[in-house]
């Protein structure tokens, strides 16, 4: 306690910095912790009395029990298959010399920058009641894509790229010289892989699994489109309880249940797996040798990976074609009517989405860097709690956040429902964790005396951050921006609770159109979203290029 008081005294010598810390604490408490607490409270405190009756429904009502079991099963399955697929692609890209690696890489990343249920729409185009494959090609009459396998398929398509991205980093950081060393002492290819590469990558693989697991169980869009009434799942069920039956307490109960597996996976990831990442850091990613695989294995793997890439191409081609097709399944003639709709009736939501993304992205980016700076470079009481609170929202399913926000900001003291602010705030605090983590990683590599030198020459804490730290962590800042922007443009699970007549989002429009069977309009919206995201990434890339001229030449 004495130590805490002393830390505050020291911090108070820099009053502006102290103010910043206080504001951030207040903001995290208000916009991350408080809504979560409200969700939990709403599930156990009904009209002034404490009760567990809603939790008892899990045992008495099959609907809820099934929702829980289904969600867990799907998340586990998608986690395993998605991670395996991601690992294969990462392995092919980092360890073999197959052609078109760059194309494979780009195509694999495409689902990441799309609205999370583009896969679901493509699946409907191809395998739905009027699906191109199921109806036109195979003439199936009673084929039903809705349910378990539909959700699983579209989630693997959506989340395997995430596993790929993180496993690519893991494999790149394992120097192929280790494999060479294994060959050198007489190991075969198979042994070198199983005894060297795989064990070294294992913590990374497990970590990727947990990420996919969290994403899958939190996913809202794919289940809402594809699960169907016979296959209840937690996130859409919570949404239906609240918006369909206006039963806040049950929705809150389901949201709380939904939180448990996510938080558990997150805790394992953060406090157990990340301590075991004994990846040998060699500084630069080494150019890989490709001695690990025989030509046969190489081409087999390439075949699998290329098939996935082709699937991506097919899915997106279907979306593009669908956006310009009059009535899918019946009338395949060309039309601009869906696009016209998007640019007339839908234009408001396009504008709203862009505005919200453009406002929330830089705020989220700056906040992330500021928190990273405070966590790495300053001591103050509650620092660990601040770090935890600010990255907590990474693991909290959007559905829970959305319910939390409507519960927390629907009544005094802070009424925000239906406003621009509530959407911006939700996005800022939801997408700040990745920026924080990137910022922390980069800051830890920068000599602290550079910032001390600035202070020594008269800069206070905030000036030091602005003039020294921020320029030095610009790469992390910009990649945080890309992430926050993509997420803000493609978010659905929290946002769907927060949109209003005044402020609507493209993703919600897409979902509504799917719901009313107008897949063409949904496809047109999806294409526009992807195009806007790509333009934004190009602009941010351009900014990086420009600042890179002054910073990238620097040796630290």
């Amino acid at each position, binding site marked *: 306690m004495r130590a805490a008081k002393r830390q505050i005294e020291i911090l108070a010598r820099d009053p502006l910095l102290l103010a910043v810390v206080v504001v951030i604490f207040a903001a995290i408490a208000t916009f991350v912790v408080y809504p979560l607490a409200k969700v939990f409270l709403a599930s156990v405190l009904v009209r002034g009395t404490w009760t567990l009756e809603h939790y008892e429904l899990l045992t008495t009502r099959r609907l809820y029990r099934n929702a829980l079991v289904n969600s867990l099963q799907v998340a586990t399955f998608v986690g395993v298959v998605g991670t395996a697929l991601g690992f294969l692609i990462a392995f092919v890209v980092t360890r073999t010399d197959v052609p078109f690696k760059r194309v494979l890489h780009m195509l694999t990343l495409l689902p990441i920058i799309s609205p999370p249920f583009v896969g679901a729409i493509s699946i409907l185009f191809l395998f739905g009641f009027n699906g191109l494959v199921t109806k036109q090609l195979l003439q199936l009459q009673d084929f039903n894509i809705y349910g378990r396998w539909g959700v699983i398929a579209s989630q693997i398509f959506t989340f395997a790229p995430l596993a790929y991205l993180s496993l690519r980093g893991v494999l790149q950081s394992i120097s192929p010289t280790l494999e060479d060393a294994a060959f050198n002492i007489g190991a075969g290819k198979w042994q070198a892989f199983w005894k060297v590469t795989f064990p070294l990558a294992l913590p990374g693989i497990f970590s990727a699994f947990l990420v996919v697991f969290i994403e899958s169980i939190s996913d809202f869009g794919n289940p809402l489109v594809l699960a169907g009434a016979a296959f209840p799942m937690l996130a859409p069920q919570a949404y239906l309880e609240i918006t369909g039956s206006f039963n806040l307490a049950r929705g809150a109960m389901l949201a709380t249940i939904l939180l448990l597996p996510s938080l558990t996976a997150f805790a394992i990831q953060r406090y157990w797996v990340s301590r075991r990442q004994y990846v040998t850091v060699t500084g630069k990613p080494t150019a890989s040798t490709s001695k690990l695989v025989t030509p046969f294995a190489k081409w087999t793997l390439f075949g699998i990976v290329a098939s996935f890439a082709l699937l991506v191409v097919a899915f997106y081609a279907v979306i593009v074609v669908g956006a310009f097709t009059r009535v899918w399944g019946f009338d395949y003639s060309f039309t601009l009517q869906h696009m016209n709709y998007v640019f007339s009736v839908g234009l408001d939501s396009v504008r709203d989405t862009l505005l919200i993304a453009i406002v929330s992205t830089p705020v989220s980016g700056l906040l992330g860097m500021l928190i990273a700076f405070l966590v790495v470079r300053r001591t103050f009481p509650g620092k660990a709690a601040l770090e935890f609170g600010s990255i907590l929202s990474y693991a909290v399913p959007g559905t829970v956040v959305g319910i939390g926000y409507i519960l927390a900001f629907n009544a005094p003291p802070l009424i925000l429902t239906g406003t621009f602010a509530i959407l911006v705030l939700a996005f800022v605090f939801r997408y700040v964790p990745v920026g924080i983590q990137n910022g922390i990683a980069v800051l830890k590599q920068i000599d602290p005396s*550079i910032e*001390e*030198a600035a*202070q020594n020459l*008269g800069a206070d804490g905030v000036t030091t951050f602005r003039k020294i730290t921020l320029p030095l962590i610009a790469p992390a800042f910009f990649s945080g921006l890309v992430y926050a922007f993509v997420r803000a443009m493609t978010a659905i699970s929290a946002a769907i609770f927060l949109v209003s007549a005044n402020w609507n989002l493209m993703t919600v429009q897409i979902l509504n159109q799917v719901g009313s069977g107008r897949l063409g309009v949904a496809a047109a919206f999806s294409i526009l979203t992807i195009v806007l995201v790509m333009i934004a990434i190009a602009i941010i890339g351009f900014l990086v290029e420009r600042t890179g001229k*002054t*910073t990238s*030449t620097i040796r630290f």
Partner: protein
Amino acid sequence: MASQEPRHVDEHEADLRIVGLGKTFVSPEDPSEGVVAVDDVNLSFRKGQLVTLLGPSGCGKTTLLRMIAGFEEPTAGDIFFGSARVNELAPNRRDAAMVFQSYAIFPHLDVFDNIAFGLRLKHLDRRTIQDRVDTVAGLVGLEGMTKRPPSQLSGGQQQRVALARCIVMEPRLLLFDEPLSNLDAKLRDQMRVEIRDLQQRLGITSVYVTHDQVEAMALSDVVVVMNAGRVEQVGNPIEVYARPASRFVADFIGKANFLEGRALDGTAIEVAGVRVDVPNGVPHPAGSAVTAVVRPEALTLHQTGGGSLRGRVARTAFLGSLGEVVVDVPGQGSWLIDVPNAAEVGLPGVDDEVGVTPSARSVHVLPA
């Protein structure tokens, strides 16, 4: 423990005063466990002095310097700049500019912007900034390089930027943390001279941390020898060399031979049964055990008989300008003796019996 011989500086004329200063680092995992980095340090320095903090690695020099700069919080004691206590002053308001061991150049700013950084924070006008940066760049030999990014500077040039960035502020204190340790030997000697010249010219009180005793001797008005967080001795370079306050200081600064013996009276001791005169005085009662220090150049070697003490040659080395002879003296251990003009007089053979005479005025009896 050796006495802390405070060089007397009156309180009112001290430019930097450190009173009872201590720092214990507490481990975050186990608050009951602490590392005492600095322990009860008392020092006072006059305006314009260049003071070195000298001691082996880990003895607390950097921690002491960082407390002066305000980067570490003392756990005991006070720091005064002039008459003002600065303990609670934030580092950015202390006016004590520091040259870091790693230089800490701002990598995204060119030389000019690095030097101008502190001036801009003071909101000086453009002309003044331009003039002051140009002047200082000239002083440290960076003229014509102010538009370069740091990545195009050699180690020595980065060092100059770090120095220029500090002196352009005209601070009340200059702090240096082993500034030359990353340079090669030749550049180190050159920069040492430049830093000393510049400091003299500007008259800024400076605290200079080093573990290199040669550097400390060459630079300082005052040397503060530290060991395990404590001050062992404060004095000018000749004092700490010729009259070390402790065995540690004698050993750390230069090469030392230790004579173990007994005090005879106020001006002589007995070593290995031989009377050795100590005109500088023996601060011990007659009969008590004493240790005296003699430097290698103050021992005379007698190869052909004579000499007050006898010993046997253990090793010899010819180093050009002088020869080194190690002699085992019974009951005393090994002594190192410098033989000037070794090329002319020649060196003894190993196992030869030789005589050794200490030069009386250079024998220094350690305080109790």
